[in-house]
């Protein structure tokens, strides 16, 4: 069986031109994209072994001398294809602000403290079932200059590789019940409510570690599904 990548799956994504998110105005193409058949160049993708990921790269709380400040959390889930099958052995990268909503990036000048014990970057590889797990701290909300009193809901950036170069995904994981959701143009650039819900992690009491850390579950669904007999040519 070979994976297929129907263009219909792309409907869940935001429109590239989403004027409420001002930076899209000068960065979204104005000419229509050109359709083409997928060739081997699109249908294959990078494969990485364990050499890319070091032990403990998935624990953002032990990268420095002491533990970072903030609320320790576990973030875990499965990387899945559109049929709900686990996508094994793929690289999952994340980056995020610290508990105060400040990024270590030099461009971030939000007047909130940096944490010398927190870089905010991690990576791991999904296992044979597609399962991944990170230990980190809950990032804070932070202001951005998009419009008056604009604040990003707390989020963790994810970068994921899949079965092919066209299943590549960069997204953001949000936390359930964030009061900033209705006001965030990036979150709301996804216009379908059900699709937006797929970017929100769920609180996972069952896997919360007593006396240690809350847990959130975030399943990541990548493009790619198997053809059924009816759909083959």
């Amino acid at each position, binding site marked *: 069986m070979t994976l297929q990548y129907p263009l219909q799956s792309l409907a869940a994504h935001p429109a590239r031109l989403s004027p409420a998110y001002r930076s899209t105005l*000068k960065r979204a*193409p104005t000419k229509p994209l*050109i359709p083409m058949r997928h*060739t081997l*160049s699109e249908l294959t993708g990078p494969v990485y072994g364990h050499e890319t990921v070091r032990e403990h790269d998935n624990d953002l709380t032990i990268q420095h001398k002491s533990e970072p400040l903030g609320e320790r959390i576990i973030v875990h889930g499965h990387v899945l294809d559109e049929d709900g099958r*686990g996508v094994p052995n793929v690289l999952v990268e994340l980056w995020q602000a610290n508990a105060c909503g400040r990024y270590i990036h030099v461009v971030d000048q939000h007047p909130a403290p940096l944490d010398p014990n927190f870089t*905010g970057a991690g990576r791991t590889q999904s296992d044979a079932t597609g399962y991944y797990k990170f230990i980190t701290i809950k990032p804070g909300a932070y202001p951005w200059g998009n419009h008056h009193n604009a604040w990003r809901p707390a989020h963790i950036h994810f*970068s994921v590789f899949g079965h092919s170069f066209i299943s590549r995904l960069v997204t*953001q994981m949000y936390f359930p019940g964030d009061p900033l959701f209705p006001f965030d143009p990036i979150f709301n650039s996804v216009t379908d409510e059900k699709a937006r819900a797929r970017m929100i992690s769920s609180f996972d009491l069952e896997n919360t570690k007593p006396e240690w850390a809350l847990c959130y579950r975030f399943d990541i669904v990548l493009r790619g599904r198997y053809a059924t007999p009816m759909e083959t040519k």
Partner: protein
Amino acid sequence: MSHQRPDGVTPSQTVGPYFKYGLTPNGEYAWNDAFTNNLVTPDTSGERIRVEGKVYDGDGAVVPDSMLEIWQADAQGRFCDPQDKRALPNSSFKGFGRVGTDAGGGYAFDTIKPGQVADPDGKPQAPHIVLAVFARGMLLHLYTRIYFDDEASNASDPVLALVPADRRATLIARRKADSGNAVYTLDIHLQGDNETVFFDV
């Protein structure tokens, strides 16, 4: 472990302005690079090339906060992916690279000229590299291709043939005449008169 059939893919969101320390630290942050812009391994066969250029926005301003990723075949036209059922590549060349644009919007990849890869009908495509562009202000990355101006097979490439003739140049890297090594240049224009052709894949 089986899962419920999802009701769709996870929507894309922008990489934002702060991806660099996580995805392209390049020695500037306390984090190591998983990937770099140098794809060449000592045992890689093929012609060493550099592809470089700048990324521009709709105002013609350089884009200093974009990330480019490339994916390509080896010099024999084979992909380092078990899904490529032909003989596996005979080197540690992986065919994937990543770079963040610098303060001047510039990028460069050191790689090898890829071989020809067949299209779904078995017809050879001209040598090309698939390029994905990510940036602040881009809610979903874009795919384009890098072709080479010194390849006669461009004339019969089935994908280039889909592109209006007056826009094909946006996909074709030009070899610098005065360079000893093979250096190709290709700028990426997100908008404007020379807007790069992006593919709906």
